[in-house]
């Protein structure tokens, strides 16, 4: 009797096993995005549906993470429930890769295929110690286009076509402030994330560190540039609030109220204006953005990474490549003005403006195919958080008049060279 029962049990287990094998053909992967729901639900769900149709054995479970993305990712990995495809960005990819949380993509996709699919300049953003860790996804350019309030510029007697360089822009800002009381342009000098003023050096063609990685941003030219911005803030040509708030946010807020005349950046800056002040949006004009002395466009991109702890890396890579393909990025660029990072996008016929009178459409036509110009700037140092905090503290001290520009930069360089592990 016991034997019979055992045999029946074994048979049952065997059948279950067979059933399991049939089931095994469908694999479910978990995909995390960053702040994309609910605005882009239709787009993301559409791409997932297309992918599942093309790959019937893979199911994608989409989760949109917001503020808690990095914490949740670490917690999920610690709990052994790592997601399979995760949307990160430059700094987070850098930190996660350095701490061994991510899979090098070359274990899943050949270097040649990656180079064929994405612009090399963007791929290099996600390359840490010679290995690529992120499939480049949607990008942005910091300079992009210049969007302006024509009434304020006319009142100040400023010709927008005469603004070709950052110096022209700052001179125009002075005129605008004097004539109208509104600010001209709000440069990022101390955004809460990163170390924005290093970006100002970079755009003006000044070095950040030498070939050995030793910081050297304290030459006379660096000091003069910082001093110039310090003086502008002292004269209230640029607002002091830039020390506390992100320039992008503050610009958006004040432009819609008619308190800022010029926005530099991607067309996404116009989305909020369109919502909060439709009249001003219709009046807004768009021209090519002025550039710094280095004639560079800086920018960045989001990417899709595959955690080392993922148990379905092959399927994850398949999906990440699909999501970031040129066809899907161009589709995304038509939903919201992002910059496609897929190679060949500059010639894509689907990225031309549809309405030449709509500011967002015009701006989109000018930037969405400009992924090949995205320049990540410089690689952040190791021990990024401590070094950037110290850099920002010193820049702040210079702006608040507690240290001279030279002293601030000397102190930041000394700290950097002592603490970059």
């Amino acid at each position, binding site marked *: 009797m016991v034997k019979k029962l055992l045999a029946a049990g074994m048979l049952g287990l065997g059948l279950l096993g067979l059933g399991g094998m049939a089931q095994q053909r469908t694999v479910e992967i978990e995909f995390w995005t960053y702040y994309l729901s609910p605005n882009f639900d239709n787009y993301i769900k559409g791409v997932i549906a297309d992918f599942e149709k093309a790959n019937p054995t893979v199911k994608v479970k989409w989760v949109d993470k917001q503020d808690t993305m990095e*914490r949740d990712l*670490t917690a999920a990995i610690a709990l052994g429930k790592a997601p399979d495809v995760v949307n990160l960005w430059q700094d987070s990819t850098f930190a996660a890769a350095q701490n061994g949380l991510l899979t090098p993509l070359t274990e899943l996709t050949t270097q040649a295929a990656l180079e064929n699919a994405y612009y090399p300049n963007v791929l290099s953003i996600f390359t840490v110690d010679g290995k690529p860790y992120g499939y480049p996804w949607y990008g942005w350019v910091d300079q992009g286009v210049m969007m302006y309030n024509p009434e304020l510029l006319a009142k100040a007697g400023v010709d927008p076509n005469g603004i070709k360089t950052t110096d022209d822009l700052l001179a125009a800002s002075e005129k605008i402030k004097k004539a109208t009381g509104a600010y001209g342009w709000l440069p990022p000098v101390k955004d809460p994330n990163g170390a924005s003023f290093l970006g100002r050096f970079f755009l003006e063609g000044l070095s950040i560190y030498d070939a050995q990685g030793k910081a050297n941003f304290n030459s006379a030219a660096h000091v003069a540039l910082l001093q110039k911005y310090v003086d502008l803030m002292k004269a209230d040509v640029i607002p002091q609030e830039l*020390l506390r708030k992100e320039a992008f946010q503050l610009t958006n807020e004040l432009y819609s109220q008619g308190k800022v005349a010029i926005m530099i950046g991607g067309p996404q800056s116009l989305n909020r204006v369109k919502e909060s002040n439709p009249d001003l949006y219709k009046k807004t004009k768009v021209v090519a953005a002025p550039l710094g002395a280095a004639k560079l466009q800086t920018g960045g991109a989001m990417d899709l990474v595959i955690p080392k702890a993922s148990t379905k890396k092959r399927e994850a890579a398949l999906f990440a490549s699909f999501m970031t393909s040129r066809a899907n990025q161009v589709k995304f660029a038509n939903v919201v003005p992002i910059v496609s990072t897929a190679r060949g996008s500059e010639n894509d016929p689907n990225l031309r403006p549809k309405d030449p009178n709509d500011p967002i459409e015009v701006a989109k036509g000018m930037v969405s195919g400009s992924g090949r110009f995205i320049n990540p700037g410089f690689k952040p140092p190791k021990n990024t958080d401590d070094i950037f905090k110290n850099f920002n503290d010193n820049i702040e001290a210079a702006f608040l008049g507690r240290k001279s520009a030279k002293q601030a930069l000397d102190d930041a360089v000394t700290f950097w060279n002592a603490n970059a592990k």
Partner: protein
Amino acid sequence: MHVKRRALTTALIAYAFLAPALVLMGLFTFYPVIYGAFLGFTDYTIADLAAKEPPRWVGFANFAQVLGDPLFQTGVWNSLKYLLVVPVLQVAALAVAVLVNQKLPLMGLFRTSYYVPVVTSIALAAVMWDWIFQKDGFLNWSLRLLHLINWEGRFSWLLNEHTALWAIMLVTFWRGFGYYMVLYLAGLQSIPAELEEAAVLDGAGAWQRFWRITVPLMKPTLLLCSLLSTIAAIRVLEEIIVFTGGSGGPLNSTYTALLYVYNKSWGNMLDANFGVAGAAGLLIALVGFALSYLNFYLTREERGGRA
């Protein structure tokens, strides 16, 4: 014997009722606290977590590092300054509780309006206070109206290292005031009316009644409120993150001790150093313990000796 057994049964039943809460607290409060304290004595970073390496025991090394870090010292100093909000908050909340405890018309309206900030979300409060503290904001505008400031020399209260912390403390005061007022009000209403009446008959004035009847009978509530607000002050974080974007600026003048812990762990999760964060957290907890003890000591009941 019978009595003993009954007592045992009663105790067992009591424990049975306590058990579910105890298990939950053990799991979600005591275990994380003990584990966090343990991590303070180890070298354990996000890279170890990724590589599934266990924490390595390093004794007091993290404590030495944390105590030697000027940023932590600044944080502790600012947190201690933040404690100044406690006495002001408690005195104001008690005084207003006494006022709204009067049987006068519209008292319900006053009580409700004082409580509104407690239920207002910090995000909304931040927008409002941000506007109040701006260079051209409501505060400077009001001060000019009262001829208290020179308009040309005005500044943003959150961008001056001498005022930023005080400005944020004012927000904490505003947020906590209604909460403590309600606690005091509950305490006041539990004082028997006969005591007051008897004192009035004996010829005691309002001030005497307050010091001889209200304050002594309110001691348990006073202890509770000052303990809660001391712990909240030493652990302040939310306001700092909202008003400074987590930088603790300007010039680290609002950088608090808990912001240090936050930035070493949750704030920069992908670069987290749990050992250092654990050690800093434990040090702050010790300060919290010391202050709590001080609170108990100051409000202790005098026992015996008096006829």
